[in-house]
């Protein structure tokens, strides 16, 4: 058995005390990703910094993920951290986003690069005395953000099952409640798994304590996820490359190579292409990936392209398959879901810098259409006269954005490459917002 698939990237979504750090610690510990010296350090810190949260005679696994000095002193995590572990089947990259202040900012950042979201529900915080179970607002928030960022694989890990005696009925009631949230947010299908991160039940292996549960453990579920790095299949596939860098052939000064990542669909020698925005036409003469010369370069590969004739191409341009020409609706204005990440609030109408593909251009948010209520995961229309209202850090809104020139936008769900933008403050250069373009179909 070899590691046959590409690394799987996942984000863990949980709030303070949900057991998120313990879960990650458990995955690293049980998959033996930790070395002796790291365990030594863990043993030194267990029962010191956070005595109240450690367990006599056991390592406090949550401390594994505490990175910075300031974090250990304060018992909090400040920023997204990335963790790695490998099983015989797969390499995993965890985006560990802290669950407290600035949560939206951290989760949006981690989720933008994740294939899977693991949503942690602390079962001890659920009130089972009511007829209808109401999950905490944070669970709705996690689900909503995962949905907006287009994460296609969701796993709901119902944690602290040991504290409710591994009660099957209660587990099923939590799953039913999440099913309703998922339906209201139009989320993709999800898997639900009963676990105890603290005791290890259901994390790496199936647990005897949940013998009633037929599904796989969390780790086995993650190992089994199949990734399809293609578009959604709703549109006609067409090749697309945002030009990163153009170089001259060391052996032939007249030959230029255009480099970038293959997005949306494969590109092949012989393909007719156009350059956006110039409209220049050419045919792909030669393709090279890091593995050598190829006839077809697949999605995600870092490609170098030689064309059959001299055309003017520079960083910021797009190489598009000719079929795409009709599909591209280049536009100066679009509707977008915007997650505001800067501590300085958005000023409607203010000139910002937008990054789309490899191109930077001026842009402005011209109108805020509606706001996501992060408590209820419902969109609220603004009350009359509130159009000029600002948007604060960690808020998510739907807004109209205007760009200084035409760019080949697409709906984020159809093409992440053409549908994602980043807004930057032109004064401070702070990363101000993540934007997901919405195009009416």
């Amino acid at each position, binding site marked *: 058995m070899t590691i046959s698939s590409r690394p799987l990237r996942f984000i863990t979504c949980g709030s303070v005390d949900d057991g998120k750090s313990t879960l990650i610690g458990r995955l690293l510990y049980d998959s033996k990703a930790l*070395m*002796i*010296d790291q365990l030594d350090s863990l043993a030194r810190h267990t029962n010191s910094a956070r005595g109240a949260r450690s367990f006599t005679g056991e390592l406090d696994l949550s401390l594994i993920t505490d990175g910075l000095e300031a974090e250990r002193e304060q018992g909090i995590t*400040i920023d997204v951290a990335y963790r790695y572990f*490998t099983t015989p089947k797969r390499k995993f990259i965890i985006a560990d986003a802290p669950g407290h202040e600035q949560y939206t900012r951290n989760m949006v950042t981690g989720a933008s690069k994740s294939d899977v979201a693991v949503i942690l529900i602390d079962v001890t915080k659920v009130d089972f005395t009511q007829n209808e179970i109401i999950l905490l607002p944070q669970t709705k928030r996690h689900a909503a953000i995962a949905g907006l960022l287009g994460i296609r694989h969701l796993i709901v890990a119902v944690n602290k099952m040991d504290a409710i005696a591994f009660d099957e009925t209660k587990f099923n009631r939590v799953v039913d409640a999440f099913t309703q949230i998922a339906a209201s947010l139009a989320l993709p299908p999800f898997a639900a798994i009963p676990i105890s991160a603290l005791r290890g039940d259901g994390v790496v292996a199936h647990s005897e304590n949940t013998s009633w549960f037929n599904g796989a453990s969390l780790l086995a579920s993650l190992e089994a996820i199949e990734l399809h790095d293609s578009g959604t299949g709703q549109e006609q596939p067409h090749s697309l490359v945002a030009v990163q*860098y153009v*170089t001259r052939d*060391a052996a032939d000064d007249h030959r230029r190579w255009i480099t*970038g990542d293959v997005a949306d669909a494969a590109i092949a020698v012989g393909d007719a292409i156009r350059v956006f925005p110039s409209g220049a036409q050419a045919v792909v003469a030669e393709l090279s990936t890091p593995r050598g010369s190829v006839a077809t370069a697949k999605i995600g590969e870092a490609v*170098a392209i030689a064309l059959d004739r001299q055309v003017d191409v520079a960083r910021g341009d797009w190489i598009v398959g000719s079929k795409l020409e009709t599909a591209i609706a280049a536009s100066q204005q679009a509707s977008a879901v915007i997650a505001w990440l800067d501590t300085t609030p958005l000023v409607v109408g203010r000139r910002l810098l937008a990054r789309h593909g490899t191109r930077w251009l001026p842009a402005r948010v011209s109108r805020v259409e509606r706001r996501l209520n992060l408590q209820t995961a419902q969109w609220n229309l603004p009350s009359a006269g509130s159009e000029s209202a600002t948007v604060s850090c960690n808020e998510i809104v739907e807004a109209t954005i205007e760009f200084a020139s035409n760019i080949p936008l697409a709906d984020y769900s159809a093409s992440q490459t053409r549908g994602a933008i980043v807004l930057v403050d032109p004064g401070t250069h702070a990363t101000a917002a993540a934007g997901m373009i919405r195009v009416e179909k």
Partner: protein
Amino acid sequence: MTARDAFLTSEFRASDTHLNWLEDEAISILREVFGAFERPAILCSCGKDSLVVLHLAMKAAAPGKLPVPIVHIDTGHNFPEVISFREALVARHGLQLIVGHLDDSIRRGTIRLAHPLESRNRHQTVTLLETIEANRFDAVVGGARRDEEKARAKERVFSHRDSFGQWQPRAQRPELWNLYNTQLAPNENFRVFPISNWTELDVWNYIARENIELPSIYYTHRREVIERSGLLVPVTDITPPREGETVVTRDVRFRTVGDISCTCPVASTAANAHDVVIETIAATNSERGATRMDDRANDSAMERRKKEGYF
């Protein structure tokens, strides 16, 4: 079964899919650097991680020439094998090499040593910042990995540094998709880490697959060492035996290559990259824990150095 056979049948052998994904990601990051910056450079200590980055950078530029210089911060406390390796490398690939000498900083008075044989590792930061300033580099590529150390787990791929080169962990720019925020003000720069998502095992698997040449001290050799508090300390002019210590000869290799005064080898008979892969899978100590005196001093040693401008 030989070690080599064990590697070839090992269930932990990384597949091409896995390494290709990491390779594509790293090359894409390097092309961002080539395309988005005016004066980039690649930091190259001739350690295995920086040599992997250099290999990737040459692939990212191919079939064009590497469009950026390589920079070596020379502590003056080098293993001679590493310097001769560097000279051969530069000649073979026609690279442009810029060397920042710690001794120059000492001469200028910008570095003052507490005593002549003090570890020069932490002083590298001063020479690095001076070299960046003198050459007006706006992006400096390094081979740091997030799995190395906990302060590095929170590092960005494009890590923004102010005009003092400082890393501000609480004020990092969120990094979304592969839409890197490469905007800079004058005198600021980026540190860029294309192999952020690689582990030590990934690096060795890649070195084996690509036949990347490394300085000979990465593989087994006989060396005089002292056993000191769990580490094998190499016997050199800079790290002589202390009173009462016994010098022994061992088969060793280095897992990292840094300043002589703080880099220790591990006992090993691994003669090539395949052998190292097998040892890495079996290893019970982390790379820095086993070999770096500087990181052992304190759990937060790396975090503090990075805030000062270290890589």
